[in-house]
């Protein structure tokens, strides 16, 4: 299988990349890892005239931690880098675990987190943990920038709000509150790449005084047109003492908030089971 012909650019600065993107708009595609782009081009689902390789731009493959602001992940950071990054493993271990589930060893060495989000697959493993971490994305174009929440970023299956002239330059995860922990639970197909059937992420913050739930966030992937937050389920737990009965109630509500297209009964049931497991694991991690 061959990649159809295109004209190739390898800019050495963000400005240069933005100006190429501004000039060619939807005729151009950005190249980061290539694990989605080239598959789509080989299958002729995407036929860009121009391919703009970002790998010649220095500094885009960095993860930065700031005690005030939190974690910033550049557009060329691979899944493998996230899996092994000491700060990610310490503070957002469930994100590292989710990235370890993505693709295969080879794909994790090539594919980038930003590329994964821009591909906007409903079954993205990284999306559910990032949603519950209230991740924001910085989008830029030649004449401006905007910051959007990950939730706004996804608009449909394989669709984002990204304009043709825009690129994602940063994934920003705010600093985690004290007495908090997250968990990612999933089940996957028994296929070559083991696509996730249901992914459930929970991020829980307990009140240090009385151990009530200060805030819970529940994210699900592969059960709706986009990765989603289960807000009604979150409301069941917020402000309450986290007890078995309430956890089950919230997990049931989360499963009712899903809109699975295929295997709906199974995906709903598994959403309930995995949300419950994720809440329990997050609690265990805090205590």
């Amino acid at each position: 299988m061959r990649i159809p012909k295109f004209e190739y650019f390898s800019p050495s600065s963000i400005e240069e990349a933005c100006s190429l993107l501004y000039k060619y708009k939807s005729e151009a595609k950005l190249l980061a890892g290539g694990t989605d782009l080239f598959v789509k081009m080989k299958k002729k689902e995407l036929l860009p005239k121009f391919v703009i390789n970002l790998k010649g731009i220095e500094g885009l493959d960095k993860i930065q931690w700031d005690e005030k602001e939190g974690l910033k992940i550049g557009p060329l950071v691979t899944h493998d880098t996230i899996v092994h990054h000491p700060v990610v493993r310490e503070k957002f271990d469930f994100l590292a675990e989710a990235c370890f589930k993505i693709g295969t060893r080879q794909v994790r060495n090539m594919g980038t987190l930003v590329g994964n989000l821009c591909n906007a697959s409903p079954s993205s493993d990284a999306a559910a943990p990032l949603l519950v971490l209230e991740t924001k994305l910085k989008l830029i174009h030649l004449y401006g920038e905007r910051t959007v929440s990950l939730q706004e970023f996804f608009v449909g299956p394989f669709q984002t709000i990204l304009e043709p002239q825009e690129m994602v330059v940063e994934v920003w995860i705010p600093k985690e509150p004290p007495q908090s922990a997250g968990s990612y639970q999933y089940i996957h197909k028994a296929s070559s790449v083991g696509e996730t059937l249901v992914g459930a992420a929970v991020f829980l913050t307990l009140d240090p005084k009385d151990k009530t739930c200060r805030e819970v966030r529940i994210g699900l992937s592969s059960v709706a047109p986009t990765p989603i937050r289960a807000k009604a389920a979150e409301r069941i737990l917020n402000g309450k003492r986290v007890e078995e009965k309430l956890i089950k109630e919230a997990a049931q509500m989360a499963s009712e908030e899903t809109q699975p297209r295929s295997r709906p009964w199974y995906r709903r049931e598994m959403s309930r089971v995995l949300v419950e497991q994720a809440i329990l694991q997050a609690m265990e991690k805090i205590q």
Partner: protein
Amino acid sequence: MKKQLIELKVNGESHELAVEPQRTLLEVLREDLGLTGAKEACGTGECGACTVLINGKPILSCLTLAIEAQGKEITTIEGLAKGAELHPLQKAFIRYGAIQCGYCTSGMILNAKSILDENPKPSREEILKGLEGNLCRCTGYNKILEAIMAVSIGEE
């Protein structure tokens, strides 16, 4: 599309080549350099038959442009043996019968090499997780696992 002059460093040797930008590293290795160890099977990044090492890490050469691989150390299966002396993994694959049709073998061995380079004493589970992106259509996974385990415990 206009050809571009690139320099690829494969198995320690530099090659100057004129390639069109859409050509994959796999195509250039096989068709221009005659290194046919890396194979094309699925062509879409699921099977791992095209695995080569770039700076020691396993990647899919069917989804990598040759033009992107400039300035990096590319290792193919042809680069593992030292003269007539096979790499320990190659010897173990032969000894354990971990080769059937052979199509997945070069990718399996290169990925196994990177797993052992990263962690010389991996557990059975760590090897299996590491090999999740290499499919063996003959399903000879047990023998492949045994061969890698043998090398990890230093069996000669």
